[in-house]
């Protein structure tokens, strides 16, 4: 309440050139408003982050307990043991992100520019998969891609593919599952940024000798870049940490880093190694994102 009082008690808007004393009283207000957010961050982000980091350097076992040891080797051991899964995760996530972008862009474009009164219906359809559980959605793909499933069953019946052919349990299925599951995360930001484009800019381009394709290339696409950046991040980050898709659609040979972290934490009960892997995953994602955003150079558009 004191915050409000202070604001109201401040200089009236009409006062020309507010002189020194009044702003000083207000200066703390922005920080006071930040406080709940900062407390939240401290309690639910920084503190867990600190314990995660500290855990990653401990030694011990579930029976003996864990004690701080500043053991950097936790990192080197975990990374050398699971580097394959790390790279695979980023590889699959990158593929899924590119695929999701290729699928989403035309979709978002159509919804933003061509859907007319169907716009809201289509948006609901984009979000609709979220109404069911992530797992159920993923399991649905096992029915579709199954060796005798909706897709292959038909093709095998008419002899188009050999009876032993399968889509499941291959990298293809995992990447497809990732793509599918995170598609709305790509589509919605793309839609939002396309929707926000001032149609008069497109008219201006049209007026300035741009064909429809050139207008897209030179105006629409550059202006949608914030959505592309947001969408790719929102897809890539969770996809890199995901393991449900690998577990349900893939095989051990498609194992991703999320699978490893889950197993180290819950099954092997090697908390330090799980923490080290989590921490490394997080830091590598932050670094990747940082370079990506800098390169994309969309700051002034966001």
């Amino acid at each position, binding site marked *: 309440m004191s915050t409000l009082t202070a604001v109201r008690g401040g200089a009236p808007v009409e006062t020309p050139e507010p002189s020194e004393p009044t702003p000083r009283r207000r200066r703390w207000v922005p920080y006071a408003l930040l406080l709940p957010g900062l407390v939240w961050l401290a309690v639910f982000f920084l503190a867990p982050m600190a314990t995660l980091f500290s855990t990653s350097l401990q030694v011990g076992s579930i029976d003996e307990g864990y004690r701080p040891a500043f053991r950097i080797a936790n990192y080197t051991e975990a990374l050398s043991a699971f580097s394959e899964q790390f790279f695979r995760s980023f590889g699959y996530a990158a593929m899924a992100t590119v695929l999701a972008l290729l699928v989403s862009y035309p979709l978002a474009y159509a919804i933003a520019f061509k859907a007319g009164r169907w716009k809201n219906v289509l948006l609901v359809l984009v979000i609709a998969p979220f109404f069911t559980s992530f797992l159920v959605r993923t399991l649905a793909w096992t029915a579709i891609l199954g*060796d005798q499933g909706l897709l292959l069953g038909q093709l095998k019946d008419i002899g188009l593919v050999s009876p032993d052919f399968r889509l499941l349990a291959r990298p293809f299925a995992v990447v497809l599952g990732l793509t599918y599951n995170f598609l709305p995360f790509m589509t919605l930001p793309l839609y939002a940024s396309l929707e926000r484009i001032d149609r008069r800019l497109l008219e201006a381009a049209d007026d300035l000798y741009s064909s429809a394709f050139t207008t897209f290339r030179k105006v629409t696409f550059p202006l949608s870049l914030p959505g592309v950046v947001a969408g790719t991040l929102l897809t890539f980050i969770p996809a890199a940490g995901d393991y449900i898709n690998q577990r349900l659609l*893939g*095989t*051990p040979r498609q194992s991703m880093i999320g699978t490893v972290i889950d*197993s180290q934490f819950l*099954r092997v009960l090697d908390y330090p190694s799980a*923490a080290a892997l989590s921490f490394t995953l997080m830091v590598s994602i932050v670094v990747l994102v940082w370079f990506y955003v800098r390169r994309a150079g969309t700051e002034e558009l966001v």
Partner: protein
Amino acid sequence: MTASHDARIPAALSRAGLSRRRFLRGVGYGGVALTGGSLLAACGTDPAKPRPEEQVAPDRSQQEKVVNFSNWPLYIDVAGKNEGKRPTLDAFTKQTGIEVNYTEDVNDNDEFFGKVRPQLQAGQPTGRDLFVVTDWMAARMIRLGFVQQLDKANMPNAGNLRAALESPPFDPDRSFTMPWQSGFAGLAYNAKVTGEVSSVEELLTRPDLKGKVTMLTEMRDTMGLTLLDMGKDPSDFTADDYAAAIDRVQKAVDSGQIRTFTGNEYAQDLAKGNIGACVAWSGDVIQLQFEDKNIKFVTPDAGVMLWSDNMMVPNKAAHKANAETLMNYYYDPAVAAELAAWVNYICPVDGAQEEMQEIDPELADNPLIFPDQATLDATHVFKDLSAEEERNYTQAFQRVIGA
């Protein structure tokens, strides 16, 4: 990972078309829910075992006629389609006046351990008076001192426990645990897809099964059967034996023979013919057979694994006596038969077979539900692992299954 935070996943799966009866033991996914949160809480844990005398909460059983019971999804009889109506539990309440808060929140042994460990380690109540976990997890919890000794005086029916289950290595005189249900881990195949599969060797090497084989993520079942197939005794093997067995499975993974490792979801794939043969649990197969006679359960000549899911009372449980009354109730042969008729696993209660004759004679004669003593004698139980063994063996197994 947002979307995967679904604590009631198997229930969701059953809604998605899986037969509920088939879905007895979900293994594998629930862990996600915890990886994020509890990992953070996992730091700097106290090495000291909780001291038993500090772990007993005042028993409020007399004042509060309730018991909080955590079990696996679809592991109890329900009336028709109404999942909230459970005849045996309702009868229990009628008989004793004790209300049962029945929660299906054990989806996975490891996940459940992750869920209750922080409280148990800190000596705080978990809000549960009774829960059910598999042998090896029961062993770990006893080892860590997380559970209370049972008062057999409250459980006159405990004597009905089948002899074959009376003294598992982790709890030789059943002072901490009572089996809820037991089962075999053996092999299963779909006769529409492949010919008979009779050994793990065939599973791991037969060319016509390439890419159509799954094994269980449950280490004791998968590795136990593999060790048996190699002529080793799962209750008494060396680290070298284990390494050789791991090696064998790894080869099958590398060659693409093994498609993946699963929890219950293999049942679906087996029924659909996506896989031809697999390591399987007996109860699942019985239920698949209701719909498709082509699904066969195989007891390999080398032997099958026997496991139990055990009821235990955690530290600081507030209604221990009520929990014991409930366990006692389920050891009444008539009640046990009613339960077994629904879940189709091995009934651990003597006398239930006779009761079953009245409910469903066909099930009463099913050796997978009421195995004779000779069959039980031929089963094997996985060795009780030390903490270090458990860690090493789990680590090695997790590497094979891709984690």
